């Protein structure tokens, strides 16, 4: 077991893990943050996307120790003090959520985009979430929601 210390959703945490544990499994099974979803385990669907130092990564493929001493943001860290993040609000209001399994990953990919580019074009939005699969929504309202969040 190794000690992993990271800044998770703004707070420093330390957890003892197997050296080969993936970040996704540590978040879910060791830290109880079930918001991040596993839908393929192979980095192909984007459901497990979290931000590592602000960059979107598929946490199912990232060894947890890569987060040593670094910042990790998950969907649980988006809202602050009960106030939804503009992206979360827009997803709710624009019907961007159906079954919701892809939603946390979508939100994190969108957050990474808006952090580096607050006013993206529709093409840039699509590019940013092109690695996130959704079976329910046809992506239409997701793109609308991200656009609306930019306008805030």
């Amino acid at each position, binding site marked *: 077991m190794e000690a992993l210390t990271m800044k998770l959703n703004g707070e420093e945490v330390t957890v003892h893990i197997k050296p080969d544990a993936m970040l996704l499994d540590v978040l879910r099974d060791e830290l109880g943050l079930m918001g991040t979803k596993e*839908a393929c385990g*192979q980095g192909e669907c984007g459901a497990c996307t979290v931000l590592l130092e602000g960059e979107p990564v598929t946490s199912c493929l990232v060894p947890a120790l890569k987060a040593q001493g670094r910042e990790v943001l998950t969907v649980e860290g988006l809202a602050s003090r009960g106030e939804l993040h503009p992206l*979360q609000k827009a997803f709710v209001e624009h019907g961007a959520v*159906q079954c*919701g399994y892809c*939603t946390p990953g979508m939100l994190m990919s969108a957050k990474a985009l808006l952090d580096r580019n607050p006013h993206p074009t529709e093409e840039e939005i699509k590019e940013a979430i092109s*690695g996130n699969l959704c079976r329910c929504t*046809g*992506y239409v309202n997701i793109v609308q929601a991200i656009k609306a969040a930019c306008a805030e």
Partner: protein
Amino acid sequence: MSEEFSFVGKPTAKLDAPSKVTGQAVYGHDMRLPRMLYGSILRSEYPHARILNIDTSRAKALPGVKAVLTAKDIPEIKIGWARDHPVLKAGKVRSIRDEIAAVAAVDEETARKALELIKVEYEELPGVFDPEEAMKPGAPLIHADAPDNIQEKMRQSYFHGNVQKGFQESDVVIEDRFRLPFVAHCCLGTSFCLASFNPSGDLTVWSSTQMPFLYQRDLSMALGMPAHKIRVIKTTIGGAFGSKLDMYPFEPICILLAKETGCPVRIAFSREEEFVASPTRQPVICDIKSGAREDGTLTARQVSMILDNGAYSSWGATTPLVMMLTISSLYRVPNVKYDVVVAYTNNPYSGAMRGYGNPQATFVLESHIDMLAHELGLDPMEIRLKNANQPGDVTGQGVKITTCGLTDCIQEAAESVSWKQKRAKPGNRGVGMASMIHVGGGARIYPSDGCGSTVKVDDFGKVTLISGSTDMGQGADTVMAQIVAEELGVPMENVTVINTDTDITPWDVGAHASRTTFVAGNSARLAAADAKRQILEAAAVSMGESVEDLDMKEGRIYRKGEPEEWIPFEKMVRGKHFQLEGDVILARGWYEPPTERQDKEYRGNISAAYGFAAQAVEVEVDTETGEVKVLKIAAAHDVGRAINPLAVEGQIHGGVSMGLGYGLYEELLVQDGRVLNPNFADYALPTVLDMPEIDSIIIETDDPAGPFGAKGMAEPACIPTAPAIANAIFDAV
């Protein structure tokens, strides 16, 4: 039209969305119980083989393994629609999905290791992977009691009129063969089950089922235990699309492991397992002959289909009944004949998937309509308009069409893609369209097609709808809450919906056949009306008024015509409660649609309303490479009334995306019974970059039987897309 309503017809955010955007929603995969074990299943290495020996001794000896089960450890019960499917296999395997052994261990890794230690000796048998081959004499026999690999109930024939006569009277007759592939549901949340027994032997199953009460019954049958000892709790569902409409072997296996170990056991599929071992949309081989007069009037339609059932029966084997509606009743066709046979193969077995056979039937029919139009030199839109179903029609199958917006759907979809300006023009762009019919007012395939609801109003004005219905992400809860708020006359924020627990909720068939808004919605409306009556009766006594003179809106009770002077409804609820011989407000609703079961010749009106749609598509084709770019899809849907337009549009977008995948991108590649692309990298699910502009056009026909006029519309969105694309490609090249 919806101005008269407070909540119906207003775009409304889904009730569960806040919990889903914050990561709070609990899906099955997120559940952990004390002492919970992880189950895992060993599947066959061969699509058809005799099992000579199974040695589990090394797996049992592995530290952390709590149980290993094979067929000899469990009751010999067969499940599935045709009762042809042993939960764990003995004697032989018939597909690579076949479950041979199951393990429960302290963690997933140990369970996986244990599977690797199980040694199975096989004797490979010749397999058959094409349903036509499977029906030939001398083909390998898959089930001993199904000669020629067909069960008697897997053959069906339907007719109305006389097709021979119809073809004789036609000016043009064309014949073609179509083949349609395997595709997969690709729910982002994979198959899941968590089972736990209490010391009295009562079983609780947490499941992503979309039919909790039939599931309860099926589990009871599979386990040989009374259904009243089984409680089914639905977790948040990570997508279903029909895949969770049946009980599959992994579910009884999970429960048997829990029983064996005395611990809660969960089984969650990996993505590869989901692709290999959950049901598919069934492949179809279809011969079709269509006749028409030179003015485009349809005269006769003859369809002959062979379905690949795979090795065992799930709902896939029953999809011909849904295809039959389309074949008999899409457009006015006086003479129709339909013969279908479903054959076993050693392929993965198929199940229910959004549209339930209708996407296949519609692809064939709607392609042929365009081929007929081409043969006759007619505009494909005009031939559709000429033959379109109309309100009041009764089709040859006895289908009673009440509201029908098909003509409007065709015209508005065409308009949206500038049909007249763009069709049959030079260049590499083209437009195409396709229509569809689907049940929209329930589907009476069981003796009951009903749904029960309870409305409870508490002392503080909280209104709880307890409904048998199932929300799998489509937004049923929100629609139910809108209906209750509207009917009862309270703010939406007062309404909550509970529909997750068979110990609490009244019965419902399940979320299939696009029936939930119509059937569960009518049921919820009845319960809300009953609650309103009870509250107004209490108010009448308290206010010294007659109940007919009172009304209630937005939680305010007032004399009709004098809404300025009002009393909060919860005050009246408390008033009724806090008195001698008082009572609580507890109301009920049971809705059974006014429909009939089909007779032996498959005639009868199984749905109380029918949904119609037309989609029109513009494509650009690279004639060098064959690459197709879809530029726009206009989807016009007769939904009766859109109770939640935001959700209706969401269903249209998602359905169109699934239809687009079916038409252009997706295929589960199955070779000699093995799945070649069991991952998202190779399966080609549409991404956001593949999506064209979608124009959702909502046509409201205000169905008299629907709740506030609504009809079912969720499956239809995926049904006409693929043929509309194919027709557009034909126009482009």
